[in-house]
């Protein structure tokens, strides 16, 4: 394998691994469910993309032609990650999970849970 390809694969693998680790670290570290939602949806998506790019380059080299089927997984995860996050947020709201003390606009939570329109005093438009 040419040296420059190896460098590219190594760098994207490392980026992927580090972001996956940060995503899971945030999941374990952040204090409440609504904040925890942020780290897997964003950091892990970039992490998996890094690993998939490395895999794509490696497989293309291995087979001798451009192999972009890994692109399918990236696309699938990019489409499904926000949907999954949205459903988990709905579940947390449904069970009236308490947010962190200092969360702003906590009074909105009951409105959100019942899918109502906020009172005019809340929106600052």
């Amino acid at each position: 394998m040419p040296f420059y390809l190896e460098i590219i694969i190594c760098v994207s693998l490392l980026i992927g691994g580090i972001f996956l680790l940060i995503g899971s670290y945030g999941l374990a570290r952040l204090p409440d469910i609504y904040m925890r939602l942020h780290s897997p949806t964003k950091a892990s998506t970039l992490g998996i993309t890094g690993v998939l790019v490395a895999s794509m380059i490696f497989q293309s080299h291995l087979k001798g032609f451009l192999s972009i089927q890994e692109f399918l997984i990236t696309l699938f995860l990019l489409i499904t990650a926000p949907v999954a996050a949205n459903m988990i947020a709905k579940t947390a709201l449904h069970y009236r999970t308490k947010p962190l003390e200092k969360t702003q606009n906590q009074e909105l939570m009951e409105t959100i849970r019942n899918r109502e329109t906020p009172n005019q005093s809340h929106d600052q438009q």
Partner: protein
Amino acid sequence: MLKITITIVAVCICIALILNLWRLLKGPTISDRILALDTMYINAIALILLYGIYVESALYFEAALLIAMLGFVSTAALCKYLLRGDIIE
């Protein structure tokens, strides 16, 4: 060099999986556990693809694709079950 990088990244992902497992066991709410499972399948995809690079085989792509699809469907199904378990919705 590639083998060393793969080892380092595999260690990173394994630590990530352990952190997810910790969150899965600790909770405290059911949504935390679903979120931990959701992150876990993403990390599992990364680990499988990494193994595919390590053994220089293209066969693991299908496994990764299947895990991605089943993982999303199971997350959606779990959330829907918890949401519809109540009469209000």
